[in-house]
C-alpha cells in the first residue's frame, strides 16, 4: 500500500473512529478504555482488542441527564457516545483510576447502562514509594484474574510477554515518528498516534513500519517558531490544524494522546507484572499522579531546552482539576525560562476563529522576538481563554 494511502487510512479512522467498527472487528472482542494508565497489554494478552473511547464534537444532550455541566468535555462527550449506542460493539470498558472524574464515570456508566460490562483498575496515585510498586503489581494481577473470569480466557505468561513486546514495538515506532518532524506534520503525527488507539495493535504496527521505512520524501518542516504542547487528551486536532496553517512548528508535547502514551518501555526481561507496574510508575506522569519530586516539571524543562522551544501552548480542558493545578507551577517555570506561553482552555466546542486570532497573535509575537533568549519576567503572553 502506498504510504500516502496508509496515512490517509489513519486520518479517516480518526475522523470517524467507530464507524463500521463491528464489521471491521469481526471475530474480535473489543474492550474500550479512556485513560492511558489502562494496562492494554493485559487486554491484548487475553485475546481482546483495546479501543480507546475518544471525545466527539457531536452535541451533548443525553449525557446531561447523567453528568452536571461542570464536568469536563471528555467525560460528557464520551458518555454521550456510550448512551447513543455508538459503543455497542464493545464487550466491556476498562476504567483506570486517574482523576475524580474518571472514578465517577466508572460508576456512572454501568448505572446508566445496565448492559455494560465495566472493569476498574485502581492504579496507584503515589508513584515513588516502595509500597506503590507492590500494590500496583497486585492490582494488575487482580485485574488479570477479573478479565480471565469475565471473558473465559487465560492470560499466560508467554502471551503476556508477547503483548509487552508488541506494545514496546509500537511505542518505539511512535517515538520515532515524533522525532521526525521533517517527515510528518504535527497533525499527521497526532492522527497516526490516535489511530493506534483505535485500530488493532498489529495493524497499527504494520502501518507505522510501512510509513517509517526508508525512502520517504520529507514533507517539509514548518518554518515558524518551535512550539511545545502541554495538556490532557487531545481529541480535537483543531489546534494542530490552526498551528499548521500559521506555520508553527510543534516539536514535542506532554499530552495523554501524545508522548505520555508512548513514553518509557516495559522491561521485557523482568517478570511481566512487575515490569508493567514499573513502567506505570516511571512513565511520563499524568498530573493526577504524585511523586515526592516534581518530576513532571523537570521533565518539561528538559524537553523545552533539548528542543530549543520558543513557545509553550497549554491546551487544557475546562473543569480538569489536575491540569488546572499543574498549570500554575508549569507556567511559572516556562516564564522563568523566558519563553512565550499561551493558555487555551477547551470545552465541548472550541470557537475556531477566536482561537485562530489568539494563535496568530502568539506566533507573530514569537517570530518578532526570535530565538529563545531570556526575557524580562512579566512580558509573557499569558491569557486565559474566554
Amino acid at each position, binding site marked *: 500500500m502506498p504510504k500516502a494511502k496508509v496515512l490517509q487510512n489513519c486520518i479517516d479512522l480518526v475522523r470517524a473512529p467507530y464507524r463500521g467498527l463491528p464489521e471491521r472487528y469481526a471475530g474480535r472482542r473489543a474492550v474500550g478504555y479512556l485513560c492511558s494508565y489502562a494496562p492494554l497489554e493485559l487486554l491484548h494478552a487475553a485475546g481482546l482488542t483495546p479501543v480507546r473511547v475518544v471525545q466527539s464534537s457531536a452535541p451533548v444532550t443525553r449525557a446531561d*441527564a*447523567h*453528568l*452536571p*455541566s*461542570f*464536568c469536563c468535555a471528555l*467525560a460528557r462527550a464520551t458518555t454521550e457516545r456510550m448512551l447513543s449506542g455508538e459503543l455497542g460493539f464493545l464487550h466491556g470498558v476498562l476504567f483506570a*483510576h486517574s*482523576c*475524580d*472524574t474518571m*472514578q*465517577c*464515570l*466508572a*460508576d*456512572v456508566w454501568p*448505572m*446508566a447502562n445496565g448492559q455494560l460490562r465495566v472493569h*476498574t483498575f*485502581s492504579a*496507584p*496515585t*503515589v508513584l515513588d*514509594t*516502595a*509500597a*506503590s510498586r*507492590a*500494590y500496583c503489581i*497486585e*492490582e494488575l494481577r*487482580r485485574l488479570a484474574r477479573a478479565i480471565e473470569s469475565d471473558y473465559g480466557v487465560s492470560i499466560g505468561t508467554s502471551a503476556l510477554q508477547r503483548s509487552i513486546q508488541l506494545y514496546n514495538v509500537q511505542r518505539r515506532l511512535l517515538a520515532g515518528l515524533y522525532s521526525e518532524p521533517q517527515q510528518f506534520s504535527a497533525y499527521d503525527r497526532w492522527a497516526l498516534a490516535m489511530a493506534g488507539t483505535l485500530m488493532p495493535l498489529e495493524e497499527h504496527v504494520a502501518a507505522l513500519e510501512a510509513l517509517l521505512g526508508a525512502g520517504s520524501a520529507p514533507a517539509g518542516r514548518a518554518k515558524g517558531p518551535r512550539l511545545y504542547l502541554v495538556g490532557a487528551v487531545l481529541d480535537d486536532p483543531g489546534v494542530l490544524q490552526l498551528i499548521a496553517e500559521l506555520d508553527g512548528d510543534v516539536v514535542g508535547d506532554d499530552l495523554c494522546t501524545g508522548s505520555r502514551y508512548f513514553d518509557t518501555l516495559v522491561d521485557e526481561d523482568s517478570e511481566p507484572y512487575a515490569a508493567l507496574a514499573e513502567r506505570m510508575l516511571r512513565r511520563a506522569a499524568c*498530573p*493526577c499522579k*504524585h511523586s*515526592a519530586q*516534581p518530576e513532571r516539571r523537570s521533565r518539561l524543562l528538559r524537553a523545552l531546552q533539548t528542543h530549543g522551544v520558543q513557545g509553550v501552548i497549554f491546551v487544557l480542558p*475546562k*473543569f480538569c*482539576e*489536575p491540569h*488546572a*493545578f*499543574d*498549570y*500554575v*507551577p508549569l*507556567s*511559572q517555570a516556562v516564564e522563568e525560562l523566558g519563553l512565550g506561553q499561551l493558555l487555551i482552555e477547551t470545552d465541548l466546542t472550541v470557537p475556531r476563529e477566536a482561537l485562530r486570532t489568539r494563535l496568530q497573535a502568539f506566533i507573530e509575537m514569537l517570530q518578532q522576538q526570535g530565538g529563545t533568549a531570556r526575557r524580562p519576567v512579566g512580558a509573557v503572553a*499569558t491569557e*486565559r481563554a474566554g
Partner: protein
Amino acid sequence: MGTRYRKLKTAAELQRLMQAHYLEAQHLRLGRPVAWVTSGAPVEILRAMGILAVYPENYGALCGARHQAVALCRQAEAQGYSPDLCSYARTNLGTMLGGGEAPLGVLPRPNLLIACNNICGTVTKWYEAVAEHYSVPLFVLDAPFVHEQVEPHALDYVQQQLRELIRFVETTTRRRMRWERLQEVVDLSNETVNLWSEIRALCRARPSPLNVPDLFVNMAPIVVLRGTKRAVRFYRHLRDEVAQRVKDGVGAVSEERHRLLWDNIAMWHRLYRFYNTFAQHGACFVVDTYTGAWSQAVPGGDVLGGLAYAYATVLLNQSLQRRAEDMIRLVSEYNVDGFVMHNNRSCKPYSLGQFAIKRRVTEQSGVPGLVIEADMCDTRSFAPEAVNTRIQAFLEMLAAG
C-alpha cells in the same frame, strides 16, 4: 409558622472550643510542629506524635460562612488558579498567596503537610501547591478507590504507607511515635465518633431534635479535634442536650411536617437562611450524608490495620452504588419523605455522580429528590432566585403528598 432557629445550649461551648483550637494553633504551639492535614487524614498518628494538626478545609468552611471566601478565591485566581477549582483550595491558596484579610488571622505556617486522597484527588494537587509555596515536606497517603469491595492488597498498601507516614513524621520533626499513646488517641477518637453517631441517630425521633445546619455547625470538632479529650467532653454535653430534646419532644423545626435527607457539603455561605426556607414549611433535614462521613470507628485489633481499614473505606472513597445504598438505608432508618442534593461545583467526586444516585434512590425508596446547583463557598456560582423557585415547587409537591 416556626421559622426561628432553635439554638442549642452547647453553642457557646462549641464556639469556645473552636476559638481555643485556632488560638492554640497560632499562639500556643509550645514547640509542637504544625501539620496541615486533610479532613480524611489519619490524625491519630499525628496526635500520638505530639504534632499540632490544623485543617485548611475547616478553615475554608469558616471563610465561606463569614462571606470572606470569594475575596480569597479571587486572590488565588489572580495567581493563575482556575475559578473552576475547589473553593476550599482556592480560599486556602488565596490566604497563602494574597496575604489579604482572613478570619481569625490566618492558619499558622505549616512545618509539614499530610494529604490523604480518600476524599478527592483535589487535595493531592492542592497540597503540592502548598508544599511548594512554603518549601515544606508533604506526605500523600494514597487510599485506592473502592469500586466493589475493599481489596486485601489495597489495605496492605494503605497500612504500609501508614508506617512510611510515621517514619516521615519522625524524620521531619524528630518526634517519636509513642505506640501506647496512639492506642489512647484511637480510643478517644472512637469515643468521639461513637458519640457523634449517637447524636445523629437521635434524629430518628419525630420530631427530629436537630436540623442539618446543627449537624454542620457541630461537626467541626469531629473533624479537627477527633482523638482529643476536649472533643469527647463536648460531644457528651451535646449528646445529653439532644437526648433531652428527644425526651421532651422538642423538635429543631416547630411543627415538623416533612423529614428530609441532605446530600453533599453545606452551603456555608447561607447556612441558616437556606435551611430556613425549608423550616418555614415545616421541612427539617433530619439526616445527611456529609456529616456521617465521620461516624466510622477504627476497628479493634492491630492499631495500624484498624486505621488503614477506617481511612481506606470512608464513604467518599467508595462507589456511587454504595453511596446510593447508604442513602436508601438512611431514608428508611430516618423515615425520610424526600431528599435534596447539593450539586456542588467545588466537589467533583461528591457531585458528578449525583444524578445517577438520585435516580436509584428514588427508584428503590420511592421518595422524591431535588438537585440544586451551587457551591459550598463561592457565592458567584449561586443563583438564589432560580434555586428558590425550584425549592418552592419541591415543597409544594411534598405538601401535596
